[in-house]
């Protein structure tokens, strides 16, 4: 892991790293990956593809209409809220 690689990952994760942070995180991630790489020693070829997908329970509920939050509930936590809308910068150029 080098600083170029960390910049690419940070961009994918929508994080902007300060120079000092970048140096520290590059070092951290290198040592963590180094540790994690021992997983290569584990032979997992015995696990079939279909075994990966039935591990959790999935219960379907009945399709019944329920009350949900009132639209105005949003105003208590939205960063910018006006007339029933969350305000964001202009997205489409005119």
């Amino acid at each position, binding site marked *: 892991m080098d600083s170029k690689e960390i910049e690419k990952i940070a961009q994918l994760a929508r*994080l902007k790293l300060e120079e000092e942070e970048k140096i520290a995180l590059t070092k951290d991630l290198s040592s963590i*990956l180094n540790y994690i790489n021992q*997983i290569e020693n*584990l032979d997992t070829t015995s696990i079939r593809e279909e075994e990966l997908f039935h591990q959790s329970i999935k219960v379907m509920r009945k399709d019944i209409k329920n009350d949900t*939050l009132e639209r105005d509930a949003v105003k208590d936590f939205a*960063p910018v809220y006006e007339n029933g809308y969350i305000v964001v910068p202009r997205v489409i150029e005119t």
Partner: protein
Amino acid sequence: MSFSFSSLKQKLSDNSISPLEIANSCIERIEKFNSSLGALVGFNPDRLIAQAELSQRRRKDNKPLSEWDGIPIAVKDNICIEGEVTSCGSKYLENYISPYDATVIRKLKEKGFLLLPRANMDEFAMGSSTENSAFQKTSNPFDLNRIPGGSSGGSAAAVAGGFSPVSLGSDTGGSIRQPASLTGIWGLKPTYGRVSRYGLVAYASSLDQIGPLSSDLAGIEDLLKILSGPDPLDQTTSDKTFPWETKEILDLKKIKIGIMENPNCSSEVNERYFKAIQNLKELGTEIVPLDFDVFQYSIPIYYLIATAECSSNLSRFDGIRYGNRGEGSKLEDIYLASRSQGFGREVKRRILLGTYALSSGYYEAYYGKAQRARVMIQKAYKDFFSKVDLILQPTSPTTAFRFGEKKEDPIQMYMTDVLTISANLAGVPALNCPFGKDSIGLPIGMQISASHFEETKILQLAKALDQMPESKIELPKEIG
């Protein structure tokens, strides 16, 4: 609060204590000790009194909502309570007020519990010492220079420090059991699917589980009954309900308990472990050594799966709909500013690691490999539980460490969860049982795990451990 959960329940039922008296004694203790203990963030005594007054009225009218009406419970800062801040120990959510109740909170309200928000935690439940909270440090009630464990460190310190007899935590890799162990209390991670996570801020959805911490075993059992059950709002909950009456008594002479070698444990923890095993042998239990092989990979597997899931779950924190919005004239700039200013170092570390593990070119070698390895862990448990009824291990490899001791070395910190993580990877239930103290007076805990939905078996063995004189830990009356 000098009362245990069961004695409080008893005193409420025979009217020898009132909900207001309970609330006032909580407040007195919190105001005396929270500044040094740091278990609770943003404590509001008026809200506790308001709940206690309603409870008092119900009791006076002879219409309590349940036998628990009036018992206080501290709530971890990542479980939503309507009208309260739910900050997850993060600057990003420091002003977020939840518009709804988590399912577990709804259930507690229906029974008349007095809710005590907000138990401090590692930011977004990422950590093992509560040192990653953006707001304050939380100390161990047994030694203020030491950490209480994490990520549910506030939930553990609130109970061990006598602020409330029980609390709610969440456990993704040991975050209930490890702090319970380090603070000398009980802490259960229920089976995956046993308790609804609706209203729990997600960290790693295939591993997260809400569960109780308590100063006595009765609190664990009662809360498990109250909290468990299917929830249409959480598709992963099972329709298996927890039996309200458990009649079968585990015959220790007829069961088999699996044990393992623990090369990562300190000698004092291992000594205690051998003592517990010895005691069980003397009670006539058959002890079966199990092979630990595949479990040595549990930490790498966990840190690939949990970080991959967190990189996806935490993408919702973009500064648009909730949380603190960063400055920016374009959407992209708002995302970058909100996330970069809002998240602490460990959260960034895990998001980056997870993003890397999922990125093109590395996906199969990391995430794909970890998924397969996880199935191997699940199969290992299946094999174990075909041979034994329960597994006994220590919960934490060491007792509570000092502030700063592991903070700068992520791998050392991750290693503290070496004994708890595999239960999350397999989805099986596991309980920390207090089991005495080390030579400098710090609590040690033992962990009992069972097959999926076999919590009753765990609780029955726990009762046997609870009766062993070596297990007793008296919680500190004075703190500091």
